[in-house]
C-alpha cells in the first residue's frame, strides 16, 4: 500500500526539515545558556543575542558553543571579560588563522560594532574585565615620566625599551607596540593575553596604565637624534656602522686609489 510519506512528500521537504532542526537547536541553545551576569549593564540584550550568533558561527568550533573551551584546542572564555574579546578580535588575533607558537595579529575580521556584540556576549557568560573608557586610555592625561618608570620595570624586558618588540622562547615574541591603539594596550595589560602576564588593577592601577600609554605615545614621536634605525639597540647600530660607515669609507678608498682618467 502507499505509505503516508509518499503522499505528503514534497521535494523541498528535506530542506525545510534541516532548517527546522537548525532553528530548534539554536532555540534550545539560546534557552539553555545562562542568563546575562552583571558585567556590563548598559549592553542591550540585542547586542548579546547578535554576539551569540556571531560567536556560534565564528568561534564555537574551537571554543565550544557555550564558550566553555575544549581541552588542548581552545581555552574557556567564561570570565575573560569584554576587554579580552575586544583585544583579541580587535587586533585580528582571533579568529585564529593557524596553530603556531602564538596567535599573530592580522587582518581584523569584524567591524567594531560586531566586536562589541561579541564582547557583550562573552561578558554575559561570566564577569570579567571591561573595555576601558575613552578617558582611561587618553595618553594626554597621563604622566609619561611615571609611565617610563613603570614601562621599563614591567614591560621593556619583553617589548623593548621603547616598545619595539622582542623575542620570547620557542618562537614566541612580544609584538611591537608602535601601531597598537591605546585601548588595545590597556586591554592587553588588564587581560594578560597568551604569554603576557596579567597586570590587574592592583598591580598597575588604571592611572598607571594610562601613564604607560602616555609614555608609549611619546615614543611615537621622531627621535631627537635623527633616524631611529628601528630603535633595536646596539645590534642595529653596529650593522649600520658596517654597512653605511665602512661601506662608504671603503668606497671612497677605492676612489682615492683608482687611477684618474
Amino acid at each position, binding site marked *: 500500500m502507499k505509505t503516508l510519506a509518499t503522499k505528503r512528500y514534497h521535494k523541498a521537504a528535506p530542506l525545510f526539515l534541516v532548517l527546522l532542526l537548525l532553528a530548534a537547536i539554536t532555540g534550545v541553545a539560546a534557552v539553555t545558556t545562562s542568563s546575562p551576569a552583571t558585567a556590563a549593564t548598559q549592553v542591550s540584550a540585542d547586542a548579546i543575542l547578535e554576539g551569540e550568533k556571531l560567536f556560534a558561527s565564528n568561534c564555537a568550533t574551537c571554543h565550544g558553543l557555550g564558550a566553555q573551551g575544549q581541552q588542548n584546542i581552545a581555552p574557556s572564555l567564561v570570565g575573560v571579560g569584554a576587554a579580552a574579546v575586544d583585544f583579541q578580535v580587535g587586533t585580528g588575533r582571533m579568529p585564529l588563522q593557524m596553530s603556531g607558537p602564538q596567535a599573530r595579529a592580522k587582518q581584523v575580521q569584524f567591524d567594531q560594532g560586531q566586536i562589541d556584540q561579541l564582547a557583550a556576549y562573552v561578558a554575559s557568560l561570566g564577569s570579567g574585565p571591561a573595555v576601558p573608557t575613552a578617558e582611561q586610555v587618553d595618553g594626554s592625561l597621563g604622566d609619561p615620566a611615571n609611565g617610563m618608570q613603570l614601562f*621599563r620595570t614591567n614591560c621593556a624586558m619583553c617589548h623593548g625599551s621603547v616598545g619595539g618588540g622582542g623575542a620570547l622562547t620557542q618562537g614566541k615574541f612580544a609584538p611591537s607596540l608602535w601601531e597598537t591603539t591605546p585601548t588595545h594596550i590597556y586591554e592587553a595589560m588588564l587581560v594578560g593575553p597568551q604569554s603576557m602576564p596579567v597586570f590587574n588593577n592592583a598591580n598597575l592601577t588604571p592611572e598607571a596604565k594610562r601613564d604607560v600609554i602616555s609614555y608609549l605615545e611619546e615614543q611615537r614621536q621622531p627621535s631627537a637624534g635623527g633616524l631611529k634605525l628601528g630603535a633595536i639597540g646596539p645590534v642595529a647600530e653596529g650593522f649600520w656602522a658596517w654597512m653605511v660607515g665602512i661601506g662608504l669609507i671603503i668606497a671612497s678608498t677605492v676612489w682615492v686609489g683608482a687611477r684618474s682618467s
Partner: protein
Amino acid sequence: MGTTLNGAATGTANYVDERTSIGGFVKFFARKIFPDHWSFMLGEVALYSFIVLLLSGVFLTAFFVPSMTLVEYTGSFPTMRGVEMSEAFSSTLHMSFEIPGGLLMRQIHHWAALLFTASILVHMARVFFTGAFRKPREINWLIGFTLMIMSLAAGFTGYSLPDDVLSGNGLRIIDGILKAIPVVGSYMSFWLFGGEFPGEILIPRLFTAHVLLVPGVILGLIALHLFLVFLHKHTQYPGGGRTHKNVVGLPLFPVYTAKAGGFFFVVFGVIAFMGAFFTVNPVWNYGPYDPSPVSAGTQPDWYILFVDGALRMMPGELFGFPFEWVIGGYTLSMNLLIPGLIMPALLFGFMAFYPWLEAWASGDRGEKHVLDRPRNAPVRTGIGVGVITFYVILALEGSNDIVANLFHLSLNDLTIFSRFAIFILPVVAFWITRRLCTGLQRKDHELVLHGNETGRIVRHENGEYIEIHEPLDAQAHWIRVSYEDIAPLDFAPQFNDRGVERKGYKFDRFKARLSKFYFEDRITPVTPDELEEAKHQHH
C-alpha cells in the same frame, strides 16, 4: 740653497733648523715613497676615526660630569622629568637636549667609536690576508694587535659612562664574569667597583681610564706603529718593477699629503653624516641605571658581541653534565670561564701569535716586503676565513633575540644551531676557502700557459677548429709567475751518528709537520721551461 721659498718661510725654517737639525729630517721624509693602493688606506681609517674621537671627546668632557651622586632631573625631556638619576646620566641628557650640537657631538663620538673598532678589524684582515705581518713586521703586528685590544677597552669604558640601564647591565655582566674567576674573582669585583656592585666610584674610575689611561696608551702605540711603518717602509703588492729591495710609488709630499690628508676629512665627513642623521645610543630611552629594569635587545656595542654570543651559546649543563663544579666546597663556574675568558684568550692568543706560527712553517728568514696575493697562500687565507666565520657566528648568536624576532625563528633553535655551527662551520669555511684559492691559482696557471680565451674560433685547412688565446700582457704575466714557492721544510735526522737523539728534534719535527700542512699541496708558479713546453704543444 736651491729653490726659493718666500721670506717668512725661509726665516722660520732657518730658525728651527739652527736649533733642531730639522733640515735632514725634512729632506729624508718629504719625498719618501709610498705605494699606491686603496687597501693601504684602511689603517688610516682607524687613525682618523681615533682623531675624530679625540676631537669630539674633548667637546664631551666639557659637559660630562663623571659622578654617581644622585640628583633629580630638572631638564626639558618629558619622559625623564622628576626622575632620580646619577649626575653622569643627567649631564648626558643636558648635553643632548640643551646644548646646541651636543647631541650631534655625542653621536659623532659614538659612530666614530663603532667605526674605529670596525676599521681596525678590516685593516687587520688586510694585513693578515696579504701576509704583511711577516719579517720584519712581526713586532708591528703585535703593536697593532694591542691597539685592537685597547680599542675594545676604550669603547667599553666609554659607553658605560652615561650610566644608563643598557650599559649598566653590561657592567653587571662583567662583574659576574670577574666573580667567576677562581680564588681572586670576588676580590677583583670589589677592587673594580670599590665595594659591592655597583658602588659609588665606578663612573669616575671608568672616566679616568677612558679619557686618560687608555687614550694615552693608544697614542703611544700609534706613534710606535707609525714609526715602524716609516722605518720598514710600506709593503707593496707584486707587480712589474717591485721587489723585496725597493718601494715603488708616489712621494709623501705632495701626493700623499693631499691624498692621506684629504682622506682624513673624508672620514670625518662620513662620521659627521652619520652623527647628523642616525640616532645612536639613545640613553634617554633606556633610563638611568637601576638594577631592576632590563630591556629586550640587551646587547653590548657590536665589538663586544662575540663575547656575549659565547656567553649565550654555552650551555649550563649538557645531557646532565653540569658546567659548574664544586671542588672541596669551592665553586668553579666553567659555564662562565669558558666563554668569557678562555675562549677570548685562545682566540686573541692565536691572532697575536700567528706570525710566529707561519714563520715556523715556512722557515723563511728573509725580509718580506712584497705582499702575497691571498690566493697564493691558501692555508693562511683559509685560516683567516675560518677565524672570521668563528667570530661572525659568535656575533650572530650574540644578536640571537634580534634575529629571532626579525625572522620569526625560535630563539632556542638558533642557540642550539650555533652550538653545532661554531665547531663545524669554521672548519668547512677553511676547507672551502682553501680549495677556492687553489682553484684560482690553477686558473692563473692556465692563463700564464695559454693566455685568455678570446672567443674567436679559427678553422684550419685540415678542418681543425681552434680558439685563439691572447697571451697575457707583461704585467699580468709577471704577477702570476713571480710569487714565492715555499716547499715544506725538511729537518735533520733524529739521531746523530752516535745514536743520540738530537736536541731540538721534537720541535723541528713539529715545525716540519706544520710546514707540510701549509705547503705540501701547492701550485708552483709556471717556469719558463713549462711555458716553452706549452707553446710548443700549440703548434
